[in-house]
Protein backbone atom coordinates (compact mmCIF):
# COMPACT_ATOMS: atom_id res chain seq x y z
CA UNK A 1 0.00 0.00 0.00
CA UNK A 2 1.46 3.37 -1.07
CA UNK A 3 1.56 6.39 1.31
CA UNK A 4 -0.97 8.25 -0.86
CA UNK A 5 -3.43 5.30 -0.65
CA UNK A 6 -3.02 5.19 3.14
CA UNK A 7 -3.64 8.92 3.37
CA UNK A 8 -6.73 8.63 1.12
CA UNK A 9 -8.06 5.77 3.31
CA UNK A 10 -7.54 7.87 6.44
CA UNK A 11 -9.43 10.82 4.93
CA UNK A 12 -12.24 8.46 3.86
CA UNK A 13 -12.46 7.03 7.38
CA UNK A 14 -12.51 10.54 8.88
CA UNK A 15 -15.41 11.52 6.57
CA UNK A 16 -17.32 8.31 7.43
CA UNK A 17 -16.74 8.51 11.18
CA UNK A 18 -16.86 12.26 11.87
CA UNK A 19 -18.16 14.44 9.03
CA UNK A 20 -21.20 12.39 7.99
CA UNK A 21 -22.58 11.80 11.56
CA UNK A 22 -21.94 15.49 12.41
CA UNK A 23 -23.71 16.67 9.25
CA UNK A 24 -26.61 14.29 9.99
CA UNK A 25 -27.18 15.64 13.51
CA UNK A 26 -26.79 19.27 12.42
CA UNK A 27 -29.42 18.57 9.75
CA UNK A 28 -31.75 17.03 12.36
CA UNK A 29 -31.21 20.06 14.60
CA UNK A 30 -31.93 22.49 11.73
CA UNK A 31 -35.10 20.61 10.77
CA UNK A 32 -36.27 20.56 14.40
CA UNK A 33 -35.62 24.33 14.67
CA UNK A 34 -37.60 24.94 11.49
CA UNK A 35 -40.42 22.76 12.81
CA UNK A 36 -40.54 24.58 16.21
CA UNK A 37 -40.28 27.92 14.39
CA UNK A 38 -39.36 29.97 17.48
CA UNK A 39 -35.74 31.02 18.07
CA UNK A 40 -36.51 31.58 21.76
CA UNK A 41 -37.29 27.88 22.20
CA UNK A 42 -34.89 26.28 19.74
CA UNK A 43 -32.51 28.33 17.60
CA UNK A 44 -31.07 26.56 14.54
CA UNK A 45 -27.37 25.73 14.15
CA UNK A 46 -26.80 28.66 11.79
CA UNK A 47 -28.24 31.17 14.28
CA UNK A 48 -26.11 29.66 17.05
CA UNK A 49 -22.99 29.74 14.87
CA UNK A 50 -23.65 33.39 14.06
CA UNK A 51 -24.07 34.23 17.78
CA UNK A 52 -20.92 32.27 18.65
CA UNK A 53 -18.99 34.17 15.96
CA UNK A 54 -20.29 37.43 17.41
CA UNK A 55 -19.33 36.43 20.97
CA UNK A 56 -15.90 35.23 19.87
CA UNK A 57 -15.15 38.78 18.75
CA UNK A 58 -15.45 40.07 22.33
CA UNK A 59 -12.75 40.02 25.01
CA UNK A 60 -15.25 38.82 27.64
CA UNK A 61 -15.79 35.58 25.73
CA UNK A 62 -12.13 34.62 25.73
CA UNK A 63 -11.47 35.82 29.28
CA UNK A 64 -14.52 33.94 30.59
CA UNK A 65 -13.56 30.80 28.65
CA UNK A 66 -9.99 30.95 29.93
CA UNK A 67 -11.03 31.55 33.54
CA UNK A 68 -13.53 28.67 33.41
CA UNK A 69 -10.92 26.44 31.81
CA UNK A 70 -8.42 27.35 34.53
CA UNK A 71 -10.87 26.78 37.37
CA UNK A 72 -12.23 23.50 36.07
CA UNK A 73 -8.90 22.06 34.96
CA UNK A 74 -7.38 23.13 38.28
CA UNK A 75 -10.17 21.33 40.13
CA UNK A 76 -9.82 18.30 37.87
CA UNK A 77 -6.06 18.10 38.43
CA UNK A 78 -6.39 18.52 42.21
CA UNK A 79 -9.20 15.94 42.40
CA UNK A 80 -7.27 13.48 40.24
CA UNK A 81 -4.07 13.87 42.28
CA UNK A 82 -5.90 13.55 45.61
CA UNK A 83 -7.95 10.59 44.34
CA UNK A 84 -4.80 8.79 43.19
CA UNK A 85 -3.03 9.55 46.46
CA UNK A 86 -5.95 8.31 48.56
CA UNK A 87 -6.19 5.19 46.37
CA UNK A 88 -2.52 4.44 46.99
CA UNK A 89 -3.09 4.88 50.72
CA UNK A 90 -6.23 2.72 50.59
CA UNK A 91 -4.34 -0.12 48.90
CA UNK A 92 -1.25 0.23 51.09
CA UNK A 93 -2.93 0.36 54.49
CA UNK A 94 -6.10 -1.63 55.30
CA UNK A 95 -6.95 0.79 58.15
CA UNK A 96 -6.75 3.73 55.71
CA UNK A 97 -9.01 1.85 53.29
CA UNK A 98 -11.58 1.31 56.05
CA UNK A 99 -11.57 5.06 56.78
CA UNK A 100 -11.39 6.38 53.21
CA UNK A 101 -13.81 4.05 51.38
CA UNK A 102 -17.02 5.20 53.16
CA UNK A 103 -16.05 8.89 52.85
CA UNK A 104 -15.44 8.53 49.11
CA UNK A 105 -18.73 6.66 48.70
CA UNK A 106 -20.56 9.51 50.48
CA UNK A 107 -18.89 12.07 48.16
CA UNK A 108 -19.92 9.96 45.15
CA UNK A 109 -23.56 9.78 46.27
CA UNK A 110 -23.97 13.44 47.32
CA UNK A 111 -25.84 15.58 44.77
CA UNK A 112 -23.71 18.22 43.01
CA UNK A 113 -26.18 20.95 44.01
CA UNK A 114 -25.67 20.15 47.72
CA UNK A 115 -21.91 20.47 47.30
CA UNK A 116 -22.24 23.76 45.42
CA UNK A 117 -24.42 25.33 48.11
CA UNK A 118 -22.23 23.98 50.93
CA UNK A 119 -18.92 25.01 49.37
CA UNK A 120 -20.39 28.42 48.60
CA UNK A 121 -20.77 28.89 52.37
CA UNK A 122 -17.17 27.86 53.06
CA UNK A 123 -15.07 29.12 50.14
CA UNK A 124 -14.73 32.33 48.08
CA UNK A 125 -17.05 32.39 45.04
CA UNK A 126 -14.21 32.03 42.53
CA UNK A 127 -12.99 28.80 44.11
CA UNK A 128 -16.34 27.01 44.33
CA UNK A 129 -16.29 25.60 40.73
CA UNK A 130 -12.76 24.25 41.22
CA UNK A 131 -13.60 22.65 44.59
CA UNK A 132 -16.84 21.14 43.23
CA UNK A 133 -15.04 19.79 40.12
CA UNK A 134 -12.36 18.27 42.36
CA UNK A 135 -15.04 16.59 44.50
CA UNK A 136 -16.63 15.06 41.39
CA UNK A 137 -13.30 13.79 40.03
CA UNK A 138 -11.91 12.38 43.29
CA UNK A 139 -14.20 9.31 43.65
CA UNK A 140 -13.77 8.32 39.98
CA UNK A 141 -9.97 8.42 40.13
CA UNK A 142 -9.93 6.79 43.57
CA UNK A 143 -12.01 3.87 42.26
CA UNK A 144 -10.02 3.44 39.07
CA UNK A 145 -6.60 3.68 40.69
CA UNK A 146 -7.67 1.20 43.41
CA UNK A 147 -8.79 -1.16 40.65
CA UNK A 148 -5.51 -0.67 38.74
CA UNK A 149 -3.41 -1.36 41.82
CA UNK A 150 -5.61 -4.38 42.65
CA UNK A 151 -5.01 -5.80 39.16
CA UNK A 152 -1.22 -5.62 39.52
CA UNK A 153 0.26 -9.04 38.78
CA UNK A 154 1.29 -10.55 42.16
CA UNK A 155 3.99 -12.57 40.38
CA UNK A 156 5.70 -9.35 39.24
CA UNK A 157 5.51 -8.01 42.78
CA UNK A 158 6.99 -11.25 44.13
CA UNK A 159 9.82 -10.99 41.61
CA UNK A 160 10.40 -7.36 42.62
CA UNK A 161 10.67 -8.49 46.24
CA UNK A 162 13.05 -11.32 45.33
CA UNK A 163 15.28 -8.89 43.39
CA UNK A 164 15.28 -6.52 46.36
CA UNK A 165 13.46 -3.57 44.72
CA UNK A 166 12.88 -0.63 47.07
CA UNK A 167 9.30 0.58 47.63
CA UNK A 168 9.91 3.57 45.33
CA UNK A 169 11.22 1.31 42.59
CA UNK A 170 8.24 -1.03 42.94
CA UNK A 171 5.94 1.96 42.66
CA UNK A 172 7.70 3.40 39.59
CA UNK A 173 8.40 0.18 37.71
CA UNK A 174 5.37 -1.95 38.57
CA UNK A 175 2.42 -0.20 40.20
CA UNK A 176 2.38 2.95 38.02
CA UNK A 177 2.64 1.15 34.63
CA UNK A 178 -0.01 -1.38 35.75
CA UNK A 179 -2.39 1.36 36.92
CA UNK A 180 -1.82 3.69 33.95
CA UNK A 181 -4.62 2.31 31.69
CA UNK A 182 -7.07 2.60 34.60
CA UNK A 183 -5.91 6.18 35.33
CA UNK A 184 -6.38 7.12 31.66
CA UNK A 185 -9.90 5.68 31.56
CA UNK A 186 -10.77 7.34 34.90
CA UNK A 187 -9.49 10.71 33.67
CA UNK A 188 -11.60 10.49 30.50
CA UNK A 189 -14.76 9.83 32.57
CA UNK A 190 -13.90 12.36 35.27
CA UNK A 191 -13.13 15.18 32.85
CA UNK A 192 -16.72 15.23 31.55
CA UNK A 193 -18.01 15.24 35.13
CA UNK A 194 -15.65 18.08 36.06
CA UNK A 195 -17.01 20.28 33.26
CA UNK A 196 -20.64 19.50 34.08
CA UNK A 197 -20.22 20.16 37.81
CA UNK A 198 -17.87 23.12 37.36
CA UNK A 199 -20.15 25.00 34.98
CA UNK A 200 -23.19 24.22 37.17
CA UNK A 201 -21.28 25.70 40.12
CA UNK A 202 -20.45 28.81 38.06
CA UNK A 203 -24.14 29.24 37.20
CA UNK A 204 -25.11 29.09 40.87
CA UNK A 205 -22.27 31.08 42.45
CA UNK A 206 -21.62 33.64 39.67
CA UNK A 207 -17.86 34.26 39.84
CA UNK A 208 -16.53 37.40 38.07
CA UNK A 209 -15.55 35.92 34.69
CA UNK A 210 -17.12 32.55 33.95
CA UNK A 211 -18.96 30.65 31.25
CA UNK A 212 -21.58 29.68 33.84
CA UNK A 213 -22.26 33.33 34.59
CA UNK A 214 -22.74 34.03 30.87
CA UNK A 215 -25.09 31.05 30.61
CA UNK A 216 -27.15 32.51 33.45
CA UNK A 217 -27.13 35.94 31.79
CA UNK A 218 -28.32 34.36 28.51
CA UNK A 219 -31.15 32.69 30.44
CA UNK A 220 -32.40 35.86 32.16
CA UNK A 221 -32.17 37.95 28.95
CA UNK A 222 -33.94 35.15 27.01
CA UNK A 223 -30.97 35.08 24.58
CA UNK A 224 -31.33 31.37 23.63
CA UNK A 225 -28.78 31.49 20.76
CA UNK A 226 -26.20 32.81 23.28
CA UNK A 227 -27.15 29.98 25.67
CA UNK A 228 -26.46 27.48 22.90
CA UNK A 229 -23.29 29.33 21.84
CA UNK A 230 -21.82 29.25 25.37
CA UNK A 231 -22.79 25.58 25.66
CA UNK A 232 -20.99 24.91 22.36
CA UNK A 233 -17.94 26.68 23.81
CA UNK A 234 -18.04 24.39 26.88
CA UNK A 235 -18.31 21.31 24.66
CA UNK A 236 -15.41 22.51 22.49
CA UNK A 237 -13.21 23.20 25.53
CA UNK A 238 -14.10 19.81 27.02
CA UNK A 239 -13.19 18.07 23.74
CA UNK A 240 -9.89 19.96 23.49
CA UNK A 241 -8.96 19.01 27.06
CA UNK A 242 -10.03 15.39 26.54
CA UNK A 243 -7.99 15.20 23.35
CA UNK A 244 -4.95 16.75 25.05
CA UNK A 245 -5.19 14.30 27.96
CA UNK A 246 -5.74 11.37 25.59
CA UNK A 247 -2.66 12.43 23.61
CA UNK A 248 -0.63 12.70 26.81
CA UNK A 249 -1.68 9.24 28.04
CA UNK A 250 -1.15 7.66 24.61
CA UNK A 251 2.36 9.10 24.50
CA UNK A 252 3.10 8.13 28.06
CA UNK A 253 1.71 4.64 27.46
CA UNK A 254 3.74 4.30 24.27
CA UNK A 255 6.92 5.31 26.07
CA UNK A 256 6.09 2.98 28.93
CA UNK A 257 4.91 0.25 26.49
CA UNK A 258 1.75 -0.24 28.57
Amino acid sequence: MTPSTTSRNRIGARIRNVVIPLAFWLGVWQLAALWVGKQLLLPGPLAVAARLWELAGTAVFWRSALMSLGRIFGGFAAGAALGALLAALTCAQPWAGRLIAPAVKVIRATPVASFIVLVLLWAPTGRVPAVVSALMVLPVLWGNVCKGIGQTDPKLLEAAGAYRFSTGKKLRLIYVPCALPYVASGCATALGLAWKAGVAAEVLCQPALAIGKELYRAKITLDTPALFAWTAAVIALSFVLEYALGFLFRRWGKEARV
Partner: protein
Amino acid sequence: MISVSDITVCFAEKTVLDGFSLAVPEQGITALSGPSGCGKTTLLRVVAGLQKPQAGTASLPGPVSLLFQEDRLLPWRTVGQHITDVLPKARRGEVGRWLELVELAGEQARYPAQLSGGMGRRLALARCLACGGALLLLDEPFAGVDAQRAGRILARIRALGTPVLLTSHQEAVLSRCDRVLALEGPPLRQKNR
Protein backbone atom coordinates in the same frame (compact mmCIF):
# COMPACT_ATOMS: atom_id res chain seq x y z
CA MET B 1 27.07 -26.76 53.49
CA ILE B 2 23.75 -25.46 52.25
CA SER B 3 21.11 -27.43 54.06
CA VAL B 4 17.41 -27.70 54.60
CA SER B 5 16.16 -29.83 57.46
CA ASP B 6 12.79 -31.47 58.02
CA ILE B 7 10.91 -29.10 55.71
CA THR B 8 7.14 -29.62 55.53
CA VAL B 9 4.95 -27.71 53.08
CA CYS B 10 1.26 -28.45 52.54
CA PHE B 11 -1.13 -26.78 50.11
CA ALA B 12 -4.71 -27.42 51.26
CA GLU B 13 -4.95 -31.22 51.37
CA LYS B 14 -1.75 -31.85 49.40
CA THR B 15 1.58 -32.41 51.16
CA VAL B 16 4.37 -31.36 48.79
CA LEU B 17 7.30 -31.56 51.19
CA ASP B 18 7.02 -33.89 54.19
CA GLY B 19 9.99 -33.55 56.51
CA PHE B 20 12.33 -33.20 53.54
CA SER B 21 16.04 -32.70 54.24
CA LEU B 22 18.85 -31.93 51.86
CA ALA B 23 22.49 -30.88 52.16
CA VAL B 24 24.59 -29.70 49.24
CA PRO B 25 28.21 -28.48 49.22
CA GLU B 26 28.82 -24.72 49.13
CA GLN B 27 30.49 -24.92 45.74
CA GLY B 28 29.76 -26.00 42.19
CA ILE B 29 26.48 -26.71 40.49
CA THR B 30 23.92 -29.03 42.05
CA ALA B 31 20.97 -30.13 39.96
CA LEU B 32 17.61 -31.39 41.14
CA SER B 33 15.90 -33.60 38.64
CA GLY B 34 12.53 -35.26 38.85
CA PRO B 35 9.10 -35.40 37.28
CA SER B 36 6.96 -32.25 36.97
CA GLY B 37 4.95 -31.49 40.09
CA CYS B 38 7.17 -33.51 42.43
CA GLY B 39 8.00 -30.42 44.54
CA LYS B 40 11.30 -29.09 43.13
CA THR B 41 9.98 -25.56 42.61
CA THR B 42 8.42 -25.51 46.07
CA LEU B 43 11.77 -26.54 47.54
CA LEU B 44 13.56 -23.68 45.72
CA ARG B 45 10.89 -21.23 46.90
CA VAL B 46 11.37 -22.40 50.49
CA VAL B 47 15.14 -21.95 50.20
CA ALA B 48 14.59 -18.47 48.68
CA GLY B 49 12.34 -17.53 51.60
CA LEU B 50 9.27 -17.00 49.38
CA GLN B 51 7.40 -20.02 50.71
CA LYS B 52 7.08 -20.31 54.45
CA PRO B 53 7.24 -23.99 55.47
CA GLN B 54 4.90 -25.37 58.12
CA ALA B 55 7.95 -26.94 59.72
CA GLY B 56 11.70 -27.16 59.24
CA THR B 57 14.64 -24.82 58.77
CA ALA B 58 17.04 -23.78 56.02
CA SER B 59 20.68 -22.91 56.56
CA LEU B 60 22.08 -20.67 53.82
CA PRO B 61 25.43 -18.99 53.21
CA GLY B 62 23.79 -15.54 52.73
CA PRO B 63 21.26 -13.77 50.52
CA VAL B 64 20.06 -15.81 47.55
CA SER B 65 18.93 -14.91 44.04
CA LEU B 66 16.10 -16.90 42.48
CA LEU B 67 15.29 -17.41 38.81
CA PHE B 68 11.55 -18.07 38.77
CA GLN B 69 10.00 -20.86 36.76
CA GLU B 70 8.27 -18.16 34.64
CA ASP B 71 10.28 -15.29 33.14
CA ARG B 72 8.35 -12.55 35.03
CA LEU B 73 9.70 -9.81 32.76
CA LEU B 74 8.24 -6.30 32.75
CA PRO B 75 6.69 -5.68 29.30
CA TRP B 76 7.43 -1.92 29.60
CA ARG B 77 11.17 -2.27 30.37
CA THR B 78 13.86 -2.89 27.77
CA VAL B 79 16.37 -5.73 27.95
CA GLY B 80 19.04 -3.33 29.24
CA GLN B 81 16.70 -1.78 31.80
CA HIS B 82 15.84 -5.20 33.24
CA ILE B 83 19.49 -5.57 34.21
CA THR B 84 19.96 -1.97 35.35
CA ASP B 85 16.90 -2.34 37.60
CA VAL B 86 18.55 -5.00 39.77
CA LEU B 87 22.02 -3.45 39.87
CA PRO B 88 23.06 -0.94 42.53
CA LYS B 89 24.12 2.47 41.14
CA ALA B 90 27.82 1.73 41.50
CA ARG B 91 27.51 -1.37 39.25
CA ARG B 92 25.37 0.10 36.45
CA GLY B 93 28.28 -0.32 34.03
CA GLU B 94 27.96 -4.12 34.25
CA VAL B 95 24.85 -4.35 32.06
CA GLY B 96 26.83 -5.39 28.97
CA ARG B 97 28.75 -8.04 30.89
CA TRP B 98 25.60 -9.82 32.12
CA LEU B 99 23.96 -9.67 28.72
CA GLU B 100 27.10 -11.07 27.08
CA LEU B 101 27.09 -13.91 29.59
CA VAL B 102 23.67 -15.05 28.35
CA GLU B 103 24.45 -14.17 24.71
CA LEU B 104 22.05 -11.23 24.50
CA ALA B 105 24.63 -8.54 23.71
CA GLY B 106 23.23 -6.11 21.16
CA GLU B 107 19.62 -6.64 22.29
CA GLN B 108 19.66 -3.96 25.00
CA ALA B 109 17.05 -1.70 23.40
CA ARG B 110 14.49 -4.41 22.68
CA TYR B 111 11.36 -5.08 24.72
CA PRO B 112 10.29 -8.53 26.03
CA ALA B 113 7.51 -8.73 23.40
CA GLN B 114 10.20 -8.49 20.72
CA LEU B 115 12.16 -11.46 22.09
CA SER B 116 11.72 -15.16 21.37
CA GLY B 117 10.83 -17.52 24.24
CA GLY B 118 14.44 -18.64 24.65
CA MET B 119 15.74 -15.06 24.58
CA GLY B 120 13.21 -14.06 27.25
CA ARG B 121 14.41 -16.96 29.39
CA ARG B 122 18.03 -15.87 28.98
CA LEU B 123 17.10 -12.30 29.92
CA ALA B 124 15.37 -13.55 33.09
CA LEU B 125 18.51 -15.59 33.84
CA ALA B 126 20.80 -12.57 33.28
CA ARG B 127 18.65 -10.50 35.66
CA CYS B 128 18.89 -13.18 38.35
CA LEU B 129 22.67 -13.49 37.91
CA ALA B 130 23.14 -9.69 37.96
CA CYS B 131 21.12 -9.44 41.18
CA GLY B 132 23.63 -11.86 42.67
CA GLY B 133 23.89 -13.42 46.12
CA ALA B 134 25.69 -16.11 48.04
CA LEU B 135 23.60 -18.78 46.32
CA LEU B 136 21.91 -18.92 42.92
CA LEU B 137 18.62 -20.80 42.73
CA LEU B 138 17.71 -21.45 39.09
CA ASP B 139 14.36 -23.01 38.29
CA GLU B 140 14.50 -24.48 34.77
CA PRO B 141 17.09 -21.90 33.63
CA PHE B 142 17.40 -23.26 30.10
CA ALA B 143 13.77 -23.98 29.17
CA GLY B 144 13.50 -23.12 25.47
CA VAL B 145 17.28 -22.69 25.10
CA ASP B 146 19.18 -25.02 22.76
CA ALA B 147 21.58 -27.51 24.34
CA GLN B 148 24.81 -26.04 22.92
CA ARG B 149 24.02 -22.53 24.07
CA ALA B 150 22.84 -23.83 27.46
CA GLY B 151 26.21 -25.60 27.84
CA ARG B 152 28.17 -22.43 27.04
CA ILE B 153 26.12 -20.31 29.45
CA LEU B 154 26.37 -22.93 32.21
CA ALA B 155 30.16 -22.92 31.84
CA ARG B 156 30.17 -19.12 32.31
CA ILE B 157 27.90 -19.41 35.36
CA ARG B 158 30.29 -21.96 36.84
CA ALA B 159 33.15 -19.48 36.32
CA LEU B 160 31.35 -16.93 38.52
CA GLY B 161 32.22 -19.17 41.48
CA THR B 162 28.84 -18.79 43.20
CA PRO B 163 27.20 -22.05 44.30
CA VAL B 164 24.20 -22.97 42.17
CA LEU B 165 21.15 -25.11 42.93
CA LEU B 166 19.11 -25.65 39.78
CA THR B 167 16.24 -27.73 38.53
CA SER B 168 16.16 -29.10 35.00
CA HIS B 169 14.63 -31.76 32.81
CA GLN B 170 17.26 -31.37 30.08
CA GLU B 171 19.80 -34.18 29.90
CA ALA B 172 22.33 -31.82 28.26
CA VAL B 173 22.15 -29.53 31.29
CA LEU B 174 22.13 -32.28 33.92
CA SER B 175 25.21 -33.92 32.39
CA ARG B 176 27.19 -30.68 32.88
CA CYS B 177 26.34 -30.30 36.59
CA ASP B 178 28.70 -31.39 39.40
CA ARG B 179 26.04 -33.46 41.08
CA VAL B 180 22.52 -34.49 40.25
CA LEU B 181 19.94 -35.39 42.87
CA ALA B 182 17.19 -37.55 41.43
CA LEU B 183 13.92 -36.75 43.16
CA GLU B 184 10.41 -38.09 43.09
CA GLY B 185 7.11 -37.24 44.71
CA PRO B 186 5.01 -35.59 45.92
CA PRO B 187 5.79 -35.60 48.72
CA LEU B 188 9.33 -34.88 47.56
CA ARG B 189 11.96 -37.51 48.38
CA GLN B 190 15.32 -38.60 47.01
CA LYS B 191 15.16 -41.65 44.80
CA ASN B 192 16.73 -44.88 46.01
CA ARG B 193 16.83 -43.76 49.58
